[in-house]
């Protein structure tokens, strides 16, 4: 508990120093949150080769905007919000290329996946099966509208609670619940449509 408090006060001190113009104090903040930002960026954009560059851009934006940080939300939330917004912009830019991911998925491979999940509990899957499943969801997400993709990623991959997502996206918890529910439904209906198109 005492350790946590000292970490928080150290963080606050670093933020205040950066706000006063001591850029070096940004280093410990990067060290502390780089893993979190890498995770958000990776799960949202799905491209390993782009993660570091995008994370760097996120920290750059945060550095430039740090004077506007007013301690109302936690620094982690504030920084995550910048990461989500940055990835959102990135996803909108690369929208044109995303369809190709989905078109690579054949009906046969979808059936194969279904058989695998039907028969065994997911934790009993081998490495190859996990990769296939991950690929399947990854393609489904790539096809989803950006808003759905962001909210599904934060919930299903980043494991944020509804309340955390609400704070991050500046929404009400009830709105997040509804959006989450609709995003899942849309994603599954999209899969259904894709399957019918393939027939």
């Amino acid at each position, binding site marked *: 508990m005492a350790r946590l408090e000292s970490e928080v006060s150290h963080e606050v001190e670093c933020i205040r120093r950066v706000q006063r113009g001591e*850029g*070096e104090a*940004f*280093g410990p903040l*990067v*060290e502390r949150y*780089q*893993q979190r930002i*890498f*995770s958000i960026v*990776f*799960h949202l954009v799905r491209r*390993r080769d782009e*993660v*570091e560059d995008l*994370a*760097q851009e996120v*920290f*750059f934006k945060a*550095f430039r905007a740090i004077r506007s940080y007013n301690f109302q939300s936690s620094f982690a939330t504030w920084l995550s919000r910048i990461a989500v917004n940055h990835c959102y912009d990135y996803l909108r830019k690369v929208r044109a290329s995303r369809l190709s991911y989905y078109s690579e998925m054949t009906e046969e491979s979808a059936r194969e*996946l*279904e058989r695998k*999940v*039907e028969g065994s509990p*997911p934790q009993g*899957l081998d490495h190859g*099966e*996990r*990769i296939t*499943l*991950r690929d*399947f*969801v*990854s393609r*489904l997400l790539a096809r989803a509208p950006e808003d759905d993709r962001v909210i*599904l990623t934060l919930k*299903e*991959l980043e*494991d944020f609670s509804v309340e955390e997502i609400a704070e991050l996206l500046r929404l009400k918890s009830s709105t997040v619940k509804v959006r989450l*529910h*609709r995003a*899942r*439904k849309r*994603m*599954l*209906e999209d*899969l*259904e449509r894709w399957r019918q198109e393939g027939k």
Partner: protein
Amino acid sequence: MDCNEIRDLVSELWGGDLPAAAREHLSRCAACERFWRDARLAQAGFRAWAEEAVPEPSLGFASRLVRRLLEWERTGARSEFFETVGRRFVYATLALTLALLLSLVLPTSGPVRGVAGADFLGLQSSTQLSQPDVIGGDLSDPHDMIPGRVPD
């Protein structure tokens, strides 16, 4: 329960147990049963993906980044400032030029200032010359008030 309600329920519960009525619907509706199986597939896919290792920052990521930020602060921020100021100066000049142009053009084209502008340039038309001034003119003949009417 209809199909839409079932789909709402599957998306809402997301892996939770479905009520008996919903299970009964699934047993006789192939499309909804498929929807439910797809949901299970997606849940398994999300789990598998969440377990995947996130790429690690390369060695010295933080220190390299801070070095770049400090470098940017020294040079980039300053040039960015001048760039912003310069851009604003250009916009202001353009706005001023536009305002000047408008002030020259407007008197010759507007309906209100048309006469004044034409007057200024000595270009008043014969029709305008033949028209009495509505405000200061003789109002004894009501026809004179009809715009564009040439007096007899």
